[in-house]
């Protein structure tokens, strides 16, 4: 074999490698998130604060006749702020994370992503479901509700759930924050957060959240609230350590 031939072959192999690696990079981009076992992960904990006068809870004027809608008073969950000015129902996520822990696989039925229609409310107000995973939609009330999604990236749906139907499932193809309403009880509003990776958390009544098993690195944290909008913040996670973040959302 002469030199020239070897050179040609080498160039050829190099080109092949290049093609393969770009193809691989592209498929990785298409695939988005990749799950693996996270060793030495860190934790991100934080609180979402509210800047403004604490809003008074808004009691809903229930106009329909069904008894079950009058069993307990219903309050709007559009903006829920604690006495210490912490914001519940804000969604925290790590923006664009590509590698990390797998989605939780709850074995208990009650731990699976669920949204219930109970007492003429959606419970919880914000449900997080992994991309491609089923969301259980329950109707504990035994009266007619309709699950009307106002999705833009996913197919919009409007499903009747008569009282005899206790459960159905929904699946989503694209990550999105989807508004859900019931037309019969117009105060019934919820959000389905279709998560592209498991690093999504909804703040609790103390405005707190915790993301664990985060591979060490520097990330952008994204915070979304249905009326207060979206903000981001940088955070650096070190192996086995806890990174603290504070968010503040301003009154609109």
């Amino acid at each position: 074999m002469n030199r020239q031939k070897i050179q040609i072959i080498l160039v050829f192999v190099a080109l092949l490698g290049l093609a393969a690696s770009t193809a691989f990079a592209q498929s990785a981009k298409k695939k988005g998130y990749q799950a693996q076992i996270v060793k030495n992960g860190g934790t991100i904990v934080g609180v979402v604060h509210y800047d403004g006068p604490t809003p008074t809870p808004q009691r809903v004027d229930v106009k329909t006749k069904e008894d079950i809608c009058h069993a307990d008073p219903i309050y709007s969950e559009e903006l829920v702020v604690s006495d210490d000015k912490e914001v519940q129902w804000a969604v925290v996520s790590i923006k664009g994370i590509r590698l990390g822990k797998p989605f939780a696989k709850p074995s208990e039925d009650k731990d699976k992503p669920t949204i219930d229609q109970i007492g003429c409310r959606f419970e919880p107000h914000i449900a997080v479901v992994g991309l491609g995973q089923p969301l259980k939609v329950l109707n504990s009330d035994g009266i007619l509700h309709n699950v009307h999604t106002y999705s833009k990236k996913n197919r919009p749906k409007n499903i009747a759930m008569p009282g005899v139907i206790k459960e159905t499932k929904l699946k989503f193809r694209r990550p999105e924050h989807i508004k859900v309403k019931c037309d019969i009880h117009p105060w019934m509003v919820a959000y389905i957060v279709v998560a592209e990776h498991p690093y999504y958390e909804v703040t609790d009544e103390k405005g707190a959240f915790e993301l664990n098993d985060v591979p060490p690195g520097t990330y952008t944290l994204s915070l979304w609230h249905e009326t207060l909008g979206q903000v981001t913040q940088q955070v650096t996670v070190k192996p086995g350590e806890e990174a603290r973040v504070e968010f503040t959302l301003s009154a609109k």
Partner: protein
Amino acid sequence: MKVKNTSVTRKLILPLLLGASVAVILIVSACQRQSQTVSLAELSPIVAEGSRAYELFQNHCAACHGRQGRGDGSAAIALNTVPRDFWNEPFRYISTMDGVPTKEDLAFTIGSGRVHGEMPSGPWLSDEDISALSDFVLELNRLGWAERLREEFASEGMDESEIQEISQERVTSEEPITVPMPGPVFLPDMQRGRDLYLASCGSCHGSNGRGDGLDMPLDDLGRPISVRDLVSEPIQGGSDPVELFKRLRCGMPGTPMPSQSLLSDDDIWQLVYYTRFLMGQPLPTAGR
């Protein structure tokens, strides 16, 4: 005489001036609006100005639906029902479970004029024309989806290929549902029908079908919409059992009317016949 004349001209001059200035304002604003509307040809060849479909649309549809199909035609205000804005609203008279009409659904709507109580569009359109118009309105719908996705998500990094992909998906229908004929022993049972009706429809259509069940219903664009009065209002999509079956099973996208995807075929048939009973339509009898 002379005095009278001047007083008349004086009386006329103010309204004339006013009229003229209003006319100028109207013309100027019309020109501005004209320059603001996009050129369809730049967006898609299917809807390009000058194409056959475009011309047909201008001649037969634009009066209500607007020149670009945005639901803003000059005749729109005179109608009881708002003409569809093809850019921003989904289609309602469908036979699929994915919220998208098949081309046959659209052709049926356009050709039969059934949705168009006020306008028998069908008779003077050939099958080819109807097919071209179906493609036309579907493409406007796709462009509308793309427009909204771009507005909302481009800043979050959604790229043009994804916008194209999703908007295409939004107008691509799956197979239509097959409407399974009720079995030979099926008989409309008014008691069962009424029970099902009260459990699945009464909250909106009212216990007697008069469309009075909801307080302030809104469509997906947030505009007031009325729930169909099943007793006295025309059933736009057709009141024959097969069409009603589709309407109940598939729902009416863009409105509160949900799809009854979780009930059995037999239950839907009972509902179809109970609805027809409310409408005063004949019911099948044994041995049909």
